[in-house]
């Protein structure tokens, strides 16, 4: 537990200490700093922690909170505000670990496999939406960044989609805990 908290604290500290470097470029801001902050929150939760409360059953409530947080931080105006307002910047460093990272990890642990699959598919779709909008928007989406940066960010999303889908799909070709026909009703044997 101790080392996870230490690493989480180090990550948050690094994100704050290097925030000017990270936030100068939207690619590192959105695709490095924000995910790292979420990760730091997730690190606070020990692996396989399943909340035993009845309200957290299935992980729905927790995941909805996490998704709300992610949706908020996908808004271009939230990114702009974080850069123009100190208050929002502080809220960013607090909310990403605590309101996204923690509930995401906790909710994921008790989520049904179909819910997990659904969230993965939706995540890919939404990353696609971001890539689409940022690469092809005829207007400047973030006031704080240049149009050329915005386009690079869009391609950054595409790269993320590529690696994330690779990460999620590869195991489906060789599932660890599945042996052939282990849960099949029957093979095609004539009766």
């Amino acid at each position: 537990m101790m080392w996870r908290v230490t690493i989480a604290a180090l990550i948050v500290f690094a994100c704050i200490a290097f925030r000017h470097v990270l936030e100068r470029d939207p690619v590192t801001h959105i695709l490095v700093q924000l995910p790292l902050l979420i990760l730091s929150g997730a690190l606070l939760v020990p692996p396989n922690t399943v909340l035993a409360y009845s309200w957290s059953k299935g992980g729905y409530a927790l995941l909805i909170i996490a998704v709300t947080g992610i949706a908020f931080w996908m808004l271009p105006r939230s990114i702009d505000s974080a850069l123009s307002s100190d208050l929002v910047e502080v809220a960013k460093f607090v909310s990403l670990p605590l309101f996204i990272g923690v509930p995401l990890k906790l909710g994921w642990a008790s989520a049904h496999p179909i819910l997990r699959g659904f969230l993965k598919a939706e995540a890919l779709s939404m990353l696609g939406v971001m890539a689409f909008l940022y690469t092809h928007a005829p207007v400047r989406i973030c006031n704080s960044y240049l149009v050329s940066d915005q386009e690079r960010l869009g391609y950054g999303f595409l790269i993320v989609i590529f690696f994330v889908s690779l990460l999620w799909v590869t195991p489906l070709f060789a599932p660890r805990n599945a042996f052939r026909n282990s849960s099949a009703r029957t093979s095609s044997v004539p009766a």
Partner: protein
Amino acid sequence: MLMSTPRNHANAVKLTMLLAGVVLILMMAFGLVMRAAQGGLFELDPAFFYRLMTAHGAGMVGVAALTGAAVLWYFVSRYVDLIEGVYWAFLGLFLLGVVLILGSIFVGGYGGAWTFLFPLPAISGGAWEASAAVAFILGYISIGVGFLLFYLEVGRKIVAAYGGIGRALAWPLAFGGAQPDDAPPPTIVAAMATTVFNTIGIVVGATVLVSSLVNLLVPGFAVDALLAKNMIYFFGHVFINASIYMAVIAVYEIVPEYTGKPWKTTRPFALAWTAILLFVMAVYPHHLLQDTVMPAWALVMGQIVSYLSGIPLLVVTAFALCVYLRGSNIRWDLASALLVLGVAGWSVGSAPAIIDGMISVNKLMHNTQWVPGHFHIYLILGEVAMAFGFMAWLVKDARASEFTGIDRLGLGIYLLGGTGFTLMFLISGALSVPRRWAVHAEEWFLQDRIATGFGALVVLGALIFVALYAKGLSARRES
């Protein structure tokens, strides 16, 4: 014989097919009204015509996919344990989507065609409000979410049971020299392939649907029309193809019952399905052959893959069925006849489709009635015939006689009507009649009216099939 489908799944599928049958007849009636209006048999307000057209397109694609999914679920549940709740969630989300779509069309006045080609939903020229388009797109999203849940359940169970996507696609047999006896059954191979490509299609579809939604809500947030078009046609093409590839599972499973010979996963079969998996996704640029701003390689790929897609269909599926029938002493009844018709119609329809997929022909034939010509063959004489065949098979035990006069009459009317109806489309296409026109020139009236006559036969045939099915269901319930 294979293990039978669990009763709860069978009942859910039977209900689905009844719903689908009713919707099919309604959508066919819409089509008939449009054809009659084009033939000048009565006046129809163009705005209303295009609403009917939108409902007909979205409804037909939806119901084709629904029947395909029902077939898949019915037979896959013989091999793996599927969660029944997922199917009900799928059906519920599907119906919610239908309500939203019908509402957007007949209450909100949306008439932007089922393809929601960007930026038409947002720029209607005053025919409908953005809110109607939003409801339409939300309807699609609801249906998409339903299908996603459906495929996640089917996919994860097959992956777990058969040891991964590759094994479920019979790759060890296709590429590794494994024995056919160790390969998964045809149903599993087909289900795995459709699950993979349609899930990808839905993910891409969700991306473009949400982008369109953002554009409708915040018009300043425009999206790129060419990219949107690519994604829409990728999604649309994959989705409608998936419905046929799911429905053909009924052929693999049911026809053996009539011949006593099992349908086996062979090496060509495995290779064909892997090819289908790739082709279905790579072929969509044949919808963009007139966009000269597209990279030339993509258009060339569209033309070539369009042709190549015919090979697994003709050389493997159609050829295998013909070989299989020879000397099989197959018992003919409504079910077996419609299922064989489904494969035959699908194969026949591939010819005009492939020819339209050539860039030089596309310039002349695309977006004429040639296009509805070929896909109405795919649907009326292909996917929908398979769906009706599946329905007839579901209730065949409840019927006393095997191949009654009314069966033969229905089949004859449907086949004659379908052939004539689709031929008129092809002929009109060759005569340069554009598709999707509410008002036709008088010189096109003759073909329109002949098509209307044949169309009425199709509706009549479908009515007979659905009535027989409903009767069969109720008879079984009484017994």
